């Protein structure tokens, strides 16, 4: 960090203001003590009202917004908020407003291109694997299986091909909730081959406006990583039946998607720190161990916050022995 040179600008303003207040006070005392006449009383009265008014105004207009802006900058520094810092209620001045807007533009484009590591991983995957080669091979296996009469292998290969096609193509865009759910179902089918009867899945969509909700747009690959997380960190380690539930609710402004599992759950302190991390958008998580649970959540959360803003994202409810609920909130976007 750069060494501090003398006083900050706002400290200087504060000092000057204090000097002025002291001067006003001295004048006030002098007026009281020196001359007594009707005229001075009237003048003193008006003087007091104007001074008090001036002080009140500077408290309301300068001090409070200054404190608020300070708090926002501090929250940004501590990683609580990300985009909120660009929308100060009272900007410092026109130039700083412009500068902040410029920062916002730079970060926006940068983040959308390479913001999250998982995103980059997908892009790498997309370049490395030749999709045509993959589909063709899978299709070949499928037809071979059909000829041999092994329907289960044929079905599995088909699901895998569909799943890959969806994952690899066009990671950047928003897709319909219906497509995302279909992808999750493909993923479930693939996992079902492995887990068999041990895994169960159900979906609940708000009864009214069912059709409309399915058309809502959400970022691609929002649900599947969380499902994967629920299976590998929740259900897999648990004895007995693993139940996954996907629940969708819509309000006029936002979409609330909850993915629940009845797995092993997370310890209280870890849930707390996880939720603290999920509160803000930060790229800190990339430094952490890749295999630790929760990275997928942080990745999806980051993408949501960077695309839609700080007020959307993920919140986790969990208890050891009871399971985990992951609540995703995104704005309701039709078309």
């Amino acid at each position, binding site marked *: 960090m750069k060494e501090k040179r003398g006083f900050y600008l706002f400290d200087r303003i504060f000092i000057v203001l204090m000097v002025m207040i002291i001067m006003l006070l001295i004048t006030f005392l002098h007026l009281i003590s020196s001359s007594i006449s009707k005229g001075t009383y009237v003048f003193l009265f008006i003087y007091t009202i104007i001074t008090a008014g001036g002080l009140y105004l500077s408290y309301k207009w300068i001090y409070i917004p200054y404190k*608020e*802006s300070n*708090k*926002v900058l501090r*929250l940004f520094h501590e990683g*609580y*908020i990300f985009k*909120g810092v660009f929308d*100060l*209620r009272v900007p410092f001045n026109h130039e700083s407003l412009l500068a902040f807007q410029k920062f916002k533009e730079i970060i926006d484009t940068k983040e959308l291109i390479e913001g999250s590591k998982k995103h980059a991983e997908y892009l790498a995957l997309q370049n490395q694997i030749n999709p045509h080669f993959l589909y063709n091979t899978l299709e070949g296996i499928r037809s071979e299986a059909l000829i041999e009469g092994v329907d289960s292998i044929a079905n599995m290969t088909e699901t895998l091909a569909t799943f890959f096609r969806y994952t690899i193509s066009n990671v950047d865009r928003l897709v319909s909730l219906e497509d995302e759910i279909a992808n999750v179902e493909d993923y479930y089918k693939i996992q079902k081959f492995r887990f068999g009867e041990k895994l169960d899945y159900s979906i609940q969509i*708000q009864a*009214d*406006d069912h059709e409309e909700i399915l058309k809502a747009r959400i970022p691609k690959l929002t649900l599947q990583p969380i499902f994967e997380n629920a299976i590998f960190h929740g259900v897999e380690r648990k004895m007995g039946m693993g139940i996954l539930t996907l*629940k969708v*609710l*819509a*309000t*006029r*402004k*936002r979409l*609330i998607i909850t993915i629940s599992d009845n797995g092993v*759950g997370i310890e209280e302190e870890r*849930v*707390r720190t996880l*939720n*603290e991390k999920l*509160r803000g958008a930060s790229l800190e998580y990339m430094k952490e161990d890749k295999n630790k649970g929760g990275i997928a959540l942080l990745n999806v959360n980051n993408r949501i916050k960077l695309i839609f803003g700080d*007020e959307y994202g993920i*919140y986790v*409810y969990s*208890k*050891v*022995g*009871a399971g985990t*609920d992951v*609540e995703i909130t995104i704005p*309701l976007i039709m078309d």
Partner: protein
Amino acid sequence: MREEILRIENVTRKIEGITYLDNINFHVFKGEIVGLLPLNNHGKRQLIEIISQNVSINFGRIYFNEKLVNYYEHSSMTNNKVYSIDKETKLVEDLKVTDNINVLNHTFHDYIIKEKKLKEKTDELLKHLGIEIETYQYVSELSLFEKTVIELIKAVISGAQLIILNELSSFLSIEELWDFQKLILYYKNQGIAFLYMANHHEEVFKICDRACLLENGRIIKVVDKKDFSDEILKPYIISFDNSIELNERSKNKGIFELRNFATENLKGISFSVKRSECITILDINNKGIQDIVGIFSGGNQPIGGDILLDNHTIDPINANNLLLNKVVFLPENPVNKILFYDMSYIENLTFLMDRKLNKSIINKKIIKHIKEEYRALVGKDVDAKDIRGLDAKSLYELVYFRVHIFSPKVVFIMQPFSDADMYLRGRIIELINKLKKKGVAIIILAVNISDTLTVSDRLLVMEDGKFLKNYNKENLAL
């Protein structure tokens, strides 16, 4: 699409360094009853506060009616359209029902109060809701249940969109609660949202559309109506196991008995309690037990009947004489009522000792012994000079140990679990069991069953001042 009345998002609230709300997330839809089960009371009051008023918060955002009303940068201090109903009524006692409903209200802008017109309007409304309350009555003349009903109506008329109901069952009897819940459901269908705070999930499951568990200022679980079951809450709540071995009761000895006891509302009741026995008197419509409370507070006199202790009649029946005969009464929320906050812990603990020892000044040696004995039970709390600094659990311990040290023969306890969170309720059960073990007969007076059954050996159900049923321990287990 559902309409969202309230949305609390990542809200953190700290006061003097203590985090009361810790990254809390929460929403309530229009026309929805959301249950809130506080596992402990930490943050509950602050949650009600931030819902009602847009006070300063450290972090997060609060939306009311899908509009941002409060956030980390700026808190406007304005009020939201929220009304909170609890035991302490906000009605003006010296005004009539119609004035409370219509005049003391933000939506009332007339300069002249047209009493007749307002009465007609109110009467019609109450008739429509099927409520029989005389609207020209003063609020002070109403029962607690009637006041609560009037408060709900007032809340709706004044335009509240969200109504917070705080522990209704701690002051409404079972029957009253049923009637009140009907009214809640009626207003729910009108689009009013409710936040139903209660200590027991059974109560919440009966009426709510969703239930949230609050612990240490965080919502730790949200359960939908279709998933309501004891099973789902099992990992979150502690069960109160009453497996403590009690001493074998000596039969026919040390019996406390009420014979044909009658007051204004008690119609000649008779029952008896043995030593080390605990019974619960459940008053379905909250009339009879108030008279028993009245006798201990000196405001009520029995009309007829006797109280017998060890086959001797206690006469006269008044608070002082009962205490001399070692019959003690613990009121509801005792920490607010019977502790002396200007005295030290040990002075509070030994408060009843002078009667036991028949001396007004207690020997220092005795005090020292008591201190040592209770230090083993309550730790260094016993040295506290100022009991204001103690938490609720320690204060409850002090109340019960004061009774314990006095070794009474009979203890009446009014609603022991009222206002207590889950952990505190567990401790109170232990404290009551300690008294039982000492051979004290315990009579719990309650308007709702709550956790009383875990300590009780018998349950007497009372309605209109008469006993309806008597269940013993075996029946209770079923």
